[in-house]
């Protein structure tokens, strides 16, 4: 089928697509009442929550651990949470800046790609920081705390690997679809 032939047959598609089930009126009502958030808004909100909570969490955790660890380790601990908060703040602002009503498609594609890539890069960076940090915590902890670090570390690594492989799968799909586009 060549493109001109496709164009001729396009009307058939249009009439077929008119048969698609109409939009559920309940969904429309929810949209009108602003009860439904878009995926973009949900994602931005998620980043916003993280960038607000993470520094507080880091300081609270460091404050609790003051008795057990040296100042250097505690500062590294706080720095880790602050770096995570900064990357989330950057991603929150970036996702929020995508305006589907006024931007051109090329700009939106470029921005969506950029922030997806930055998200993965941030994950890799944070994983690279957390491994030596956990090792240091483990070395300087007492026996009682070590058990907690091992349990927490195993659960964290398992969850992290599941999330990482799931994201990499999506990333590969995205790259193969976009390869033709460049």
């Amino acid at each position, binding site marked *: 089928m060549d493109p001109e032939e496709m164009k001729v047959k396009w009307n058939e598609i249009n009439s*077929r697509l008119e048969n698609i089930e109409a939009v559920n009126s309940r969904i429309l009502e929810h949209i009108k009442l602003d009860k439904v958030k878009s995926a973009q808004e949900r994602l931005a909100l998620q980043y916003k929550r993280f960038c607000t909570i993470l520094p507080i969490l880091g300081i609270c955790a460091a404050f609790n651990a003051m008795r057990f660890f040296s100042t250097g380790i505690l500062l590294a601990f706080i720095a880790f949470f602050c770096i995570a908060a900064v990357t989330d703040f950057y991603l929150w602002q970036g996702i929020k800046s995508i305006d589907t009503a006024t931007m051109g498609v090329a700009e939106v594609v470029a921005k969506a790609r950029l922030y997806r890539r930055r998200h993965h890069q941030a994950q890799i960076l944070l994983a690279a920081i957390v491994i030596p940090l956990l090792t240091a915590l483990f070395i300087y902890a007492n026996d009682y705390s070590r058990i907690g670090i091992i349990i927490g570390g195993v659960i964290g690594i398992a969850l992290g690997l599941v999330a990482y492989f799931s994201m990499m799968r999506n990333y590969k799909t995205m790259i193969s679809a976009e390869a033709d586009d460049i």
Partner: protein
Amino acid sequence: MPSIENKDSAFDSLISMHGSTISKVCYFYAIDTDDFNDLRQEALINLWRGLDRFRGEAEMSTWVYRICLNTCVSYFRSNKKRRLSVPVDECPQLIADDTDKSSMLKEMYNLINRLGPTDKALILMWLDNYDYETIAEVMGIPRNTVASRLRRIKERLVKYSNQ
């Protein structure tokens, strides 16, 4: 800003006039029927949010097209495991009584889906008879780029079709 009642009725008439455009764009970007419903809902939310800012500088149909394309190309799919869903090209509502028409629709879906998101947007607008100036404006790229990219896309579609 229009009043709530005005916005409500403007939105209703937008959907009745351009509902098929919204479905068409989402259809060509969807992976399966669940994805199609998610994309369409996403496009509707963005249309509702953007309605206050529509000043009528562009045709309503072009504005709807722009929001639908932008929604589809920037859609942030969640990582949740998807339910076993019907592939969108096998959606029962789209399968025509005529087998030839059904296979033609499926072939067209499969061909267009081999393109990346920007190229897909270009070919959809071209198939819908938009002129190069309008396509360039919606895409945010120069007119000459539209022409050259469309030429390359058409060549690729012919190649894919012959494979």
